[in-house]
């Protein structure tokens, strides 16, 4: 069963208008007016307008008469559609290889096997909602096993995200109203007349009379929602995308065959990229099987790449994850994100005394979901702030840590509070009690005073830490500090902590 994310934009028309014209103040109520025949009616209203009492379907004249200061803008369906397409293309490059427009006001995407790269489903959904909110778009995000269920849940919820666990589809949708079944309005109306209210009721009714009365549409939508018939998502494409594909008259399934054709597709793709002077940053391999399902493998690179061996390796690493089922009908390789790449990629052959380009290796790790990074110094005296992570493929950083004081090789994530006996203010402890063992301090260095960084946090205005390197009788060396200067309680609690372990 795939995992399908449905993103619903309830306020797409008004959000689009606000995005296009940032000068509109937040408190300004906006209503979008549609025309059908000679009737002018409200087809969308933003939160401020809804709060004032404007509701959808209200005649435009009435809305204008009732609510002062309501800004009315003519509907522009073409612009809405273009905006949705733009958002969908963006989501394609960000989240998943299989993303499609779920007209008129949503996006649907298959994230099977893509969520672990973003820290699991919950974090992925939250980040999707947050990123759309940051772009000024209200979004409701749902994930479920089928397109139908995700679509219905996204439109039914009032909070931002919902996760329908595997196998819980029926329980999640049975109480939802019929209107979320994606049926024509006429059928929904007629079903209501017959007394049906929820999807669950409809699903528990004998199928034959319904089909006789309304045609196959209801049965099809129900089956799609419960995953009994597949509903493949046809990913969005534009003319600019570099795409190569291969259809098989005789469906293939063996791993070696798949690998062979992947390699050939990569060669074709690289040829095409070469012609356009592009290098690929993200490439998707989409596999369509005979039974109508689509599977996708996405490979990302840290730098634009046009190297056949490199790209082939990225895909071959994971072709074993493809389940060919009854056979593969078609394979498509798309360069979803491409960037200009002028010079030819340097070959990564092993040559003595030549600096080896690690980017392909970094990509292999990255595509496996590992966190790949380098570290760089930060000009900060506070130990836990003096190191930051940078991208593994980023440019070399010249600086290193300038420190004449010794630094521990392991830094505890949270300093461990310890019991000590020490003379204030500037003596190291006589003994400390750490990890259940009492250690007599034989030698010590310090104090090294580290001041709080008041420009980072107000609470560090007066904060001070006095660090000591201590060595016990067995030779174990620890980094301990006292919070505060030992005299003034303003500067800290005067408690002692172990912060690191020396070699």
């Amino acid at each position, binding site marked *: 069963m795939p995992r399908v994310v449905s993103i619903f934009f309830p306020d797409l028309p008004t959000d689009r208008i606000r995005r296009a014209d940032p000068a509109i103040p937040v408190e300004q109520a906006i209503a979008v007016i549609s025309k059908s025949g000679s009737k002018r009616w409200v087809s969308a209203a933003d939160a401020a307008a809804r709060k004032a009492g404007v509701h959808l379907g209200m005649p435009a004249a009435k809305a204008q008469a009732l609510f002062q200061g309501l800004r009315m803008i003519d509907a522009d369906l073409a612009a809405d559609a273009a905006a949705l397409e733009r958002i969908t293309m963006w989501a394609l490059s960000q989240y998943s290889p299989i993303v499609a427009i779920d007209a008129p006001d949503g996006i649907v995407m298959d994230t099977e096997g893509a969520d672990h790269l973003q820290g699991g489903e919950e974090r992925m959904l939250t980040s999707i909602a947050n990123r759309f909110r940051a772009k000024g778009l209200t979004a409701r995000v749902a994930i479920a096993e089928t397109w139908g269920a995700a679509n219905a849940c996204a439109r039914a919820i009032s909070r931002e995200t919902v996760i329908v666990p595997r196998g819980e589809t029926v329980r999640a949708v049975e109480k939802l109203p019929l209107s979320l079944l994606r049926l024509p309005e006429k059928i929904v109306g007629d079903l209501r007349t017959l007394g049906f209210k929820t999807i669950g009721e409809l699903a528990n009714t004998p199928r034959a009379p319904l089909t006789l009365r309304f045609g196959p549409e209801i049965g099809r939508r129900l089956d799609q929602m419960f995953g009994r018939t597949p509903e493949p998502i046809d990913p969005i494409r534009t003319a600019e995308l570099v795409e190569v594909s291969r259809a098989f008259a005789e469906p293939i399934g063996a791993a070696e065959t798949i690998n062979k054709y992947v390699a050939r597709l990569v060669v074709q793709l690289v040829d095409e990229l070469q012609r356009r002077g592009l290098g690929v940053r993200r490439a998707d391999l989409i596999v369509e099987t005979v039974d109508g399902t689509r599977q996708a493998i996405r490979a990302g690179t840290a730098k634009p790449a046009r190297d056949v061996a490199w790209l082939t390796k990225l895909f071959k690493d994971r072709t074993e994850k493809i389940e060919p089922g009854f056979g593969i009908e078609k394979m498509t390789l798309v360069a979803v994100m491409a960037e200009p790449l002028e010079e030819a990629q340097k070959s*990564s052959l*092993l040559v003595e*005394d*030549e*600096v*080896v380009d*690690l980017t*392909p*290796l*970094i990509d*292999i*790790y990255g595509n*496996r*979901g*590992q*966190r*790949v*990074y*380098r*570290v*760089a*110094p930060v000009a900060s005296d506070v*130990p836990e702030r*003096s*190191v930051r992570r940078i991208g*593994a493929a980023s440019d*070399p*950083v010249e600086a*290193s*840590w300038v*420190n004449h004081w*010794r*630094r*521990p*090789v*392991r*830094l*505890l*994530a949270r300093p461990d509070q310890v019991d000590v006996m020490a003379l204030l203010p500037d003596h190291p402890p006589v003994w400390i009690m750490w990890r259940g063992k009492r250690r007599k301090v*034989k*030698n*010590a*260095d310090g104090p090294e005073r580290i001041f709080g960084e008041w420009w980072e946090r107000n609470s560090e205005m007066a904060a001070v830490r006095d660090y000591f*390197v*201590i*060595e016990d*009788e*067995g*030779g*174990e*060396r620890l980094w301990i500090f006292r919070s505060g200067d030992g005299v003034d309680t303003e500067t800290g609690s005067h408690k002692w902590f172990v912060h*690191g*372990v*020396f*070699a």
Partner: protein
Amino acid sequence: MNSAAASNAVLDSLREQIAHLESASQRKRGVLPFGLAQIDDRLPGGGLAYGALHECAGGGAGTVDGAAAAPFVAGIAARTKGKVVWCLTRPDLFFPALAQAGLHPNRVVFVESDKEEDVLANMEEGLSYGGLGAVIGEIVRLPMAASRRLQLAAEKTGTMALAVRRWRRQTEASDFGQPTAATTRWRVSVIPSEELPVPGVGRARWFLELMRVKAGECAEFEVGACDAEGRIDIFSRSADGQDQAGRSRYSR
């Protein structure tokens, strides 16, 4: 001393014959000397072999932190050429300390994973990529099969593989007794620092045990911790009984 030199000549010719029997790729790799006669003499070829797996653990209470083992391998890695891939699951390494052992942050690419098995897979991937100075992995368990895979991958490209064994709790350290395919196995324990004429902590010192070496014998050394170039140095009172005046170091 003389008899040792004579037997060395015999041993060398024997070693050469064995090397002929082993895979051809391994012969040309060469070694990375410590620059300390006492240690290098104990290692076949006169140093740590490139294209091989070396294991290293902290001794005593340091097994959980691997505190001494980490800068020891960092010092070895610092003396190799090329990038270093460091695979780990627990990101508690404090890089300023490694920089003090001679490792520049630009040279090290960290690969952090959630699972122990991923560390092994990442190490193998790095080793077979080729062109790296060293691949370091912090691991709890190193089964025979996995160590053999790492050894083979290292042999193939001539990259040095360094496994830092560290444990989540003290009791797991008994796993270190299990055999692996590693070419050398080291244990580094902290011992009281060099004595200073004034109060204070002197230069850190380690008790370095060469617990196992292929085609060689075990040995123990007392060494001073890595300096800013990643070199360790040896104290005259070496545990193998030889007492030489002063420090003998003919490093670069």
